[in-house]
């Protein structure tokens, strides 16, 4: 199959890739660009472990074609921390024990990061609905909710 050249911003850096039109964004990220923080869980958009940020929206990268990211701006878990250190959501997940096996964590963090921009001061109910596209088998969500709340407070103080 003829390959397409695509170019997009990944965690602030311009990147290029040659992809088949059918290639999924998650495979390009993981296999071509070696950003393995984004995981694959179900390949049907249900579990959310592949969640990345595309042009300011949370998307499931297992059901987005890489060519759809052409010219776009992608943020993955690898792009959350900066020179100052961990992002508030990363720090809060550690402090509130919001992760166990770590497999859902990157998608969960990228979603939380976007969700708190959509709703900077959420109630528990709003967190439950706003994060509901991301599944976790380990934590029972309770500590993730605490972490998102605590990150919200931190971000509002900043």
């Amino acid at each position, binding site marked *: 199959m003829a390959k397409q050249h695509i170019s997009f911003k990944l965690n602030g850096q311009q990147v290029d890739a040659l992809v088949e039109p059918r290639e999924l964004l998650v495979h390009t990220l993981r296999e071509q660009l070696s950003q*393995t*923080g984004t995981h694959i869980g179900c390949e049907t958009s249900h579990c959310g472990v592949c969640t990345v940020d595309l042009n300011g929206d949370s998307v499931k990268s297992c059901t987005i074609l890489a060519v759809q990211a052409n010219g776009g701006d992608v943020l993955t878990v690898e792009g959350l*921390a900066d020179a100052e250190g961990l992002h508030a959501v990363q720090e809060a997940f550690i402090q509130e024990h919001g992760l*166990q*096996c770590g497999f859902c964590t990157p998608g969960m963090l990228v979603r939380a990061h976007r969700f708190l921009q959509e709703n900077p001061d959420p109630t528990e109910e709003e967190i439950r*609905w706003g994060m509901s596209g991301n599944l976790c088998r380990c934590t029972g969500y309770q500590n993730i909710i605490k972490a998102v709340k605590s990150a919200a407070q931190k971000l509002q103080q900043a």
Partner: protein
Amino acid sequence: MATAEEEVSRQDALQGIGCSRKRKEDPRFVQGKGNYVDDVKMPGMLFADMVRSPYAHARIKSINKEKALALPGVHAVLTADDLKPLNLHWMPTLAGDVQAVLADEKVHMQYQEVAVVIADDRYIAADAVDLVEVEYEPLPVLVDPHKALDPDAPILREDAQDKDTVGQGPRKHPNHIFTWEVGDESATDRAFEEAEVTVTQEMYYPRVHPSPLETCGCVASFDKVKGNLTVYITSQAPHVVRTVVTLLSGIPESKVRIISPDIGGGFGNKVGIYPGYVTAIVASIVLGRPVKWIEDRMEHLSTTAWARDYWMTGELAADKDGRIKGLRVGVLADHGAFNSHAQPTKWPAGFFSIVTGSYDIPTAYVKVDGVYTNKSPGGVAYRCSFRVTEAVYLIERTLDVLAQKLGIDKAEIRRRNFVKPEQFPYQTALGWELDSGDYHTALDKVLAAVDYPGLRKEQEEKRAKGELMGIGLVTFTEVVGAGPSKSCDILGVGMFDSAEIRVHPTGSVIARMGTITQGQGHQTTYAQIIASELGLSSEDIQIEEGDTDTAPYGLGTYGSRSTPVGGAATAVAARKIRAKAQKIAAHMMEVSEADLEWDIDRFKVKGVPGQEKTMKEVAWAAYNNVPEGMEMGLEAVDYYDPPNFTYPFGTYLCVVDIDKYTGQVHVRRFYALDDCGTRINPMIIEGQIHGGLTEGFAVAMGQEMPYDEEGNLLGNTLMDYFIPTFVETPHWETDYTVTPSPHHPLGAKGVAESPHVGSIPCFTAAIVDAFSHLGITHMDMPHSSYRVWQQLHELGLDKRT
């Protein structure tokens, strides 16, 4: 003299047992720097994908690989005929049966592995799978286990047709796997004949799948020059995998390296050995290149190990006051097409005989029959010790039925039957020795915390108004920490576990265990054990697991065995080091060993203030100044063979409100009190309990793997298979008591599975309790809105007046 304040600060600096230390694992995971199997990339790596059967039972007439092989980028298509010369077309199961690696003349289940394609990348492999042409001749399908032993039932396993046994005792039919009996049948029958009251309850525990978010997979790499095989694999038991690989391939263990890297959840699913692993290994050996095989979600749910599928009948004999005189249990176990359930060898029904629960039951008898059907093989322990979830479900449900029949409150009937604190260690009628427990205290604490009488009063008021509210109560006992090698082995290897600890000259430590974390936080908690035992900060203690080249042999992590067995090995190895350190300290201070006392992080000369050596100082001396005749260094290994299992317990209470018109169940409150003995990291314990409760909620409320009459699996995507989201999951309240295990070096019992085991019957109990005044004694899971509505409809409760 050290002030109390100084002592507290020295204690705090260790971050040892009992503190809620933040997890050592987390900084990697939150930055996307985990290393899971699918993250492993090797030069020249190829991808494997499976051709799978669309039929549940069929003869394979032909397989045509030509078109697939003609596709550019395809390296090989392997079938059973290709594996036959290597004698790898069948593999032994952990239960003494065999399982087809690739279907040999017949398929026995839908999605069975028929051929494996090896290609340059996963897209080409998937294309090639579609190009492999397989011609099938469908055969009659056996789905209902109740029909498996009918005289005219289709014979499934022709390979085993003439065998007297398939590894677990005599058989009575070609579709029969085993009969397992335990207890005194005639004494139990007598108890029933003489009883003032008896109850019988049939119940089905559906087939459910652990479904961790990471599916199974591996990367196999055979080095033709060195003859070494390296396999990265999603395994909860890497050392067992190495032994199996050696037995199958003939490559010596010293040349087989199995690495379980980070694992994205296991919950029992990743204990077994799957055809995908074997074919990836074979392909790597044949092609001389690394081969990666990763399941998709549908393959995962369709073929790798599921749990339960027990058709159970529970019977209790009792007196008028509800005091139990006997328990009788019959089970029909559907094991699917191959007997590849994961249990210790001598336990065909796992530890199901823990079914007497927390109760003083004088006599009991259990009989379990296992049969083949045209379904995927399994019967693993989904977040529980082997078949304990089924056992706890049975006794807790049947006891509620007895309470309802006698009109005794469900808390009161438990109190009347509990094993009393002074009866421990308690011998159960079915052969277990419960190590310790205080069931009354746990129950009373929970009833007080939720105002149980108040809840019952509210329920009365609601019933008067025609509303449905239910209160579920469960007082469970688990058996974990498998196990004593005299009774537990896997493939002949005793179920010990191990720890190897090295203290370096400056007091930093590296320790390796035979277990493997899958989210339980071993890198954090094992370090806490060593910190408390050795007086060295857990921040300076590095824990490594999962690499068979470096870690000591161990049986792995499942059945809540890491703390009871691996944790015990860690404590004992650390104590060996401290004993040596004491000798060195005595030598350094020129006193006798007996003059020294241990104080948090140092040895002190008794009665001589200021005469002391910290463990750090002793560690330095261990490498340059040891007593004459002593060897240098400061390290120890322990292979811990537990003297008994451990028996964590708990009391759970659930309150539900049910919508009469839709059947929707709202879990209003769930209160979970756990007693896991000594608590190593309360934060991690609470996290494990939240997770276990949520998995219990999933099983009770929605998980099932239904098959239609033709053996088509109807629930193998996350659209159909229920995994609760943030929205459905209830809020959890947790509590605890501490009753240490008398035989564990730290008094710890293990915890992560209790919430799964205990919560499932609690949800059922709550829902049934909402209907109990209408004469309902039991409702089978899953309690989806539709199924609950069916019950409402049957009772005519959904009619609007």
